[in-house]
């Protein structure tokens, strides 16, 4: 008989309850975490590689931003469980990012305004 505070789940369906209206939220299994980490390592390697490749110099900045966005999203969605947990957490985080981006744009515009 299972203890009252445990549930049965397959290795690839590791489940923890969220208290959000009694819904089940699935957290990744260790194997999935390792797969994500391998992807992160490969993207980082690609990021460093393009830094040294002269042929992509014209596209270097967009490429680096793309790689950074991929890495950022993978960590936030899988390791921080935003993909699996209540969307309220994601809304808080996105609100902070939106504030930071607004601040960045405002300061950049302000400096250009004063520079001209």
């Amino acid at each position, binding site marked *: 008989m299972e203890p009252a505070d445990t549930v049965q789940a397959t290795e690839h369906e590791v489940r*923890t309850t969220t208290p959000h209206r009694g819904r089940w939220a699935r957290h990744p299994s260790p194997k999935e975490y390792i797969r994500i980490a391998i992807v992160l390592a490969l993207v980082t390697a690609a990021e460093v590689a393009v830094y040294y490749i002269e042929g992509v110099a014209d596209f270097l900045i967009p490429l680096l931003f793309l790689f950074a966005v991929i890495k950022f999203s993978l960590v936030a969605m899988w390791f921080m469980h935003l993909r699996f947990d209540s969307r309220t957490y994601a809304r808080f985080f996105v609100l902070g990012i939106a504030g930071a981006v607004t601040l960045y744009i405002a300061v950049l515009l302000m400096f250009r305004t004063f520079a001209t």
Partner: protein
Amino acid sequence: MQEQVGIHVYESEHEATSTGLPSTKLAMWLFLASDVLLFGALITSYVVYRGRSVVGPYPNDVFDIPYTSVSSFVLLASSLTMVLALAAIQRGDLGRMRLWLLATALLGMTFVGGQVYEFTTFYEEGLSLTTNVFGTTFYVLTGFHGAHVTIGILMLLTLFTLSFGGKVGQKDAMSVELVGLYWHFVDIVWIVIFTVVYLIPTGP
């Protein structure tokens, strides 16, 4: 054949809240959202003053990309060990949790040690906090990040130590998850810093 594993239902044990979500986890996300603004301001300062130094050393004079790349790999690896620690405590595997928490702390120490070495090298090459705007914005941004990593290491070691006194068990998996959220946050901040500060080329 699929392996059966027992997973502790830890989140259901929190007190009833109006949101239906654990207040501690919500508070951690709120804190992280505010910390995004802090780092947003610091990164903005760095970018705004990029290329405006009138005296050297300039970024290209001091940066060692292969060295910093290794540091980035180390911090990414620590995020993996952190989630493995969380998965272990959710399974009720206290021994593995301790192992992964310690590994995470050691990887964090390696990163901070690398940063101290980098700062020392830059200082010896003539870049101090007051040398030029690059030095000021660079040291403040990466220094704040290093301080965050250091605080994270202290949290990890606290969890590790408390686990021996029976104060961190399967029912406390939420505490490990909260420390994990903070740890992954410093990792994603570094992802941005590594790209914006180190990899995007800049002139003097």
